[in-house]
Structures are given as C-alpha cells and as structure tokens.
C-alpha cells in the first residue's frame, strides 16, 4: 500500500458555508505529516472526515486503503486518535483509563495488563496511576492521551492540536516522542496552529479558508517562499490574500 492517506477533492459543506473546499493530497506510510493552518481554516473538519466522525459532502478519502465513506469501520480498526480536548475520562484514574481503552480496542486481558504496566513505566506515571485524571497537570494528560491513542499499535495516528495550551518544553518533548514512535513505521497526521512545529514534520501542508495553499517539505517551502521560518511562509500567504483584489 503506497499511501497511508489519500484524498481527492475532499469537501465538507455546512449549509452555505464550505469548511473544507476540495483538498487533494497523499500521505506516505511512516511519514510525519503536519497539517497546518490558522484557527478556523478547516483542519479539524478535515480530520473528522478522515477518522470517520463526519460524512464528507463530496470527494474521496482513503485511509489505510479503505474508503472513509463506505468502509468506515475498517478504517477505524487501523487508526488511533487524539482529540483536541484529549477525551480522557476525568473521573477515572490513569490506570483505569488505560484499561478501558485497551478493552475497547479489543486487547485481551493479559495484554492489557502488560501494556498498562509498560505504559505507566514508560511515561513515569506509575506514581499517579491511581489518581483521577482531572487532578493531573495538562502536560501529563497530554502524554497519557497520546499513549492511549497508540496503545493498540495502529498503522496511522491522527493528532488534532495535541500541543494546545502546553508549555514549549513539553511541546518539544512531545514531538521527540512522536519522532521516536514514527521510526517504528507508524504514520502520523498532526494538525496544529503552531507554525514552528513544522520543523519536526517530514512534509507539511498549509490550509487557508478551506483550501490547501502549500504542500511540501518544510525546507522546500522555505526556499519557495524565500522565508526564514514556517511562520514567515504563513504570513506571506496571509498577506498575499489581503493584496488580492
């Protein structure tokens, strides 16, 4: 399977408003693909379509080789997801959250126990394994949510604004974790509005008002736009829009 994710003219309309306007792109296996764009550009809507949470208005999307419209359940077997709000159960403990999601993904009892212990050790969360998630600091919740997203070893992982509201050091650590995990062959599709995180990705695309206005390796884009940073690229795009009649 050459492409982990493949879309063609993928569109989503809400009444008169077009949130995602005919985007076309491919993501290779094992890639870390950054889906950048300002708030409201349509990133979250796009991810919702790719994960089977929302029905496309038109266009094609294939994730892991399965059509998102017709074979949504097969798509879901191969993906992991970390939502903007982290979607952990506030009133369950760390350990209980891990056990629950392990079970939901069909892992056996023994496997769940093994993974739980391994995960707790890896994230050094053993000390707080019996604390309710709501008392954890944001950075730890983020790490936990990420680990749960990859618990069942999915082939493709979708991360929707995973670093929102988190401090820069934790952000950097988080991206290191993503890189490490990606080296095991998992494909990462990450949306973010932090432009500097583009440096960590293999390729990035920039969305603006529902359309993809740039897609390439970060280095190539910087050359193309003669920019020093990704932020610069984005500003140029935004300014370019303003100057258009």
């Amino acid at each position, binding site marked *: 399977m050459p492409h982990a994710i493949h879309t063609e003219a993928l569109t989503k309309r809400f009444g008169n408003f077009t949130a995602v306007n005919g985007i076309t792109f491919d993501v290779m296996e094992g890639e870390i693909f950054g889906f950048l764009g300002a708030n409201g550009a349509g990133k979250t809507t796009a991810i919702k379509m790719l994960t089977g949470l929302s029905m496309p208005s038109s266009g094609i999307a294939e994730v892991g080789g399965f059509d998102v419209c017709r074979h949504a359940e097969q798509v879901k077997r191969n993906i992991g997801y970390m939502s903007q709000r982290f979607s952990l*159960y506030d009133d369950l403990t760390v350990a209980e959250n891990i056990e629950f999601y392990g079970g939901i993904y069909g892992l056996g009892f023994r496997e769940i126990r093994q993974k739980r212990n391994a995960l707790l050790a890896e994230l050094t969360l053993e000390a707080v394994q019996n604390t309710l998630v709501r008392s954890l600091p944001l950075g730890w919740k983020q790490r936990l949510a990420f680990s749960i997203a990859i618990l069942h070893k999915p082939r493709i992982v979708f991360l929707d604004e995973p670093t929102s509201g988190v401090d820069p050091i934790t952000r950097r650590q988080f991206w290191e974790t993503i890189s490490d995990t990606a080296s095991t062959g998992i494909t990462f599709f990450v949306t973010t509005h932090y432009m500097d995180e583009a440096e960590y990705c293999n390729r990035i695309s920039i969305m603006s008002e529902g359309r993809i206005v740039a897609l390439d390796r970060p280095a190539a884009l910087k050359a193309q736009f003669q920019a020093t940073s990704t932020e610069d690229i984005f500003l140029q795009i935004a300014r370019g829009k303003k100057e258009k009649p």
Partner: protein
Amino acid sequence: MWVIYFIVRKEFRQIFRHRVLLPMIFMMPVVQLLILSNAADYEVRNIYLHIADADCSTTSLRLIGKFAASDHFELVGRSFSAAGGNANLESGRADMVLEIPSGFERELLREGSSTLLLNVNAINATKAGVGSGYAKAIIRDFNDQLIAGVKGMQNPSRQFDLRPIFWYNPELNYKAFMVPGILVMLVTLVGMFLSGLNIVREKEVGTIEQINVTPIRKRYFIAGKLLPFWIIALAELAIGLVFGRLVFHIPIEGSLAVVFGFAGLYLVAVLGIGLLVSTISETQQQAMFIAYFIMVIFILMSGLFTPIESMPGWARVITWFNPIAYFVEVMRMVMLKGSGWYEIRWHCAAIAGIALAVNGLAVLNYRKRSA
C-alpha cells in the same frame, strides 16, 4: 462482545465515585416510599363542617349530634345565623355549612317535611361530591329513624342485603395499592432519566468522540452503557420491596420471580426510551426536559393515580403504548392478587413489543458519524 464488560466496568467505576449521585440513588426509594405512600390518599377524611342552627330544637340538636359523632366530619363552628358560616366557608376554615332553618322541627312535625340547606365548597369537586354524599347519608339515616320512631313500622320496606365483599385487600389498605405503583415510578426514574442523561453527558463533554473513532459496534456500546442502569434499577426495586414489606407490610401474594422477570423486561423498554431521548438531544438540559415531559404524560395516564377505564377512548388508546401503565397493572396484579406469568402474558407481549420498537429505533438513530 467482551467490549461490553469494559464499558460496564467503566460506568460502574464512574457511578460509584459520584459522591452525590450514589447515595441519592439508594436513598430515593426509601424517602419516596415514606412520603408518597403516606401522602397519596384520596380518601376523604376530616371534612370541616360549620353548623348554622337557627332552630335550636331537640330535633336539630339530635341531628347535630349525629354529625358530631361521624368520623368523616369535624365540627369547626356553630352559629345561629348563616353569615358566620359563610364567612368560614370563604376563609377556608369550613368546607361545608349546614343551615338548619328556624322552625325546622315544627315544620317537620306539622307538615311532614322540611328543607335543610347544605353549602359546599366545590373547588375540590371530588371532595365536595364525596362530602355531600356522606352528609346526605347521615341525614337520610336520621330521617329513617325519625319516620320509624314517629310512624311505627307502617311501611315495611322490602330491601336487599347488600354487604360488599372486598377481595385481595379486605382492609382497603390504600398503601397496598400505592406502594407497588410508587416502586414502578422509582424504577422508571432511574431507567429513563439516568441512562439517557449519561449518554448525553458524554456527548456534551466530548469523550464520546473517542468512542466513535473506535471500531466498536453501536449495539455493544449501547448495551454497555445501559446495562449498569438496568442493574441499578433492579437493585432499587429490591430495596424498595424489602422496605415496603418491612415498614408497610405490603402483601406479596405472587411470585417475586414474576415481579423481577417482568421488571427486567420493562426496564429494557424504559432504558430504550431514555436512549432514544439521548439520541435526539444535544445537551443534558434538553434530554432532561424531554424525558421529564414524556414521563409526566406517561405517569398521569398510567392508571397510577386515576383509573384508566374512566379515560375517554382516545386516551385509552394511548395507554396501549404506555409501558408504565402495563407495569403498574402487573405490579398490582402480581403483588395483591397473586397473578402469574399466564395471567400477564398479554402485558409481557406488549412490553416486549415496545422494547423492541424503541430500542431498534434508538440504535438506528444513534450515529457514530454525524452527517
């Protein structure tokens, strides 16, 4: 399939951690039974009677004595004129005013008939009807006595001996009638409200997304969400029954297996309604109001407080689709009359039908993907 186990376990963990919800769930049967069964009584007692006696004769005094001796009435005022009585009626101190006109005894003896006036506060029509019925009965009795005393046994009346026989509840214990119905209400509250709200809360908070993204089948997810409340509702029924038996000595003539068996089936239907409500609500507030709306209508028309036969045709048709009506009837039939599976076979069929329809609709309606 095992997925259901994980969901149920998570739900129970969350419920038992809820500091306020859990004690409320288990205190509710006790408190409600205590209050409801003592309050819910349509028997008309203690009618406040004011007597305006303008005659002050032996006969009028004897009549007043009869009223004073009656259990149904409590004399709250005596006066000579009607004005005092009417003031009491208006202020609410008296429910009824009996006006005995001046010259009552004389007229009775001389002309053989006289008229009393009974002023009744008819705002509570039932009470007025029953109260005036009691009053008329007392007066009629008194009248018969007078006739018998004065004229002797001139007219031997033929009569029927009409002593009533009350089956299944010879002491006419109103609580035996109400408590099963109240238990139904409690169980329904947990089944319809809590289960529906539970799902909507996940929608509102956002954790439902994480579930929708997994390959979990809709029906397993739903089953896992509903099962804990099925169990809790049955537990409440058990607590309520034990409490009712110990404190109110309600009869349990029939088999408890039938009661719990039917309750289990009933809960599937009611949980399904809660589920259906959750699929059409976006917020907990909406879910709550819609469920409340449905519950109020169903409870009022369930025969719990007023008889179904007295409802007009169209209302009775609606009760065919009202699961609460079936359960109320079954509870009373089984607990008070000892009916068994055979006698409630049609009720079972109806509830099964409702359960199937509602749950099927709810599962169809529940979408892991929004349009």
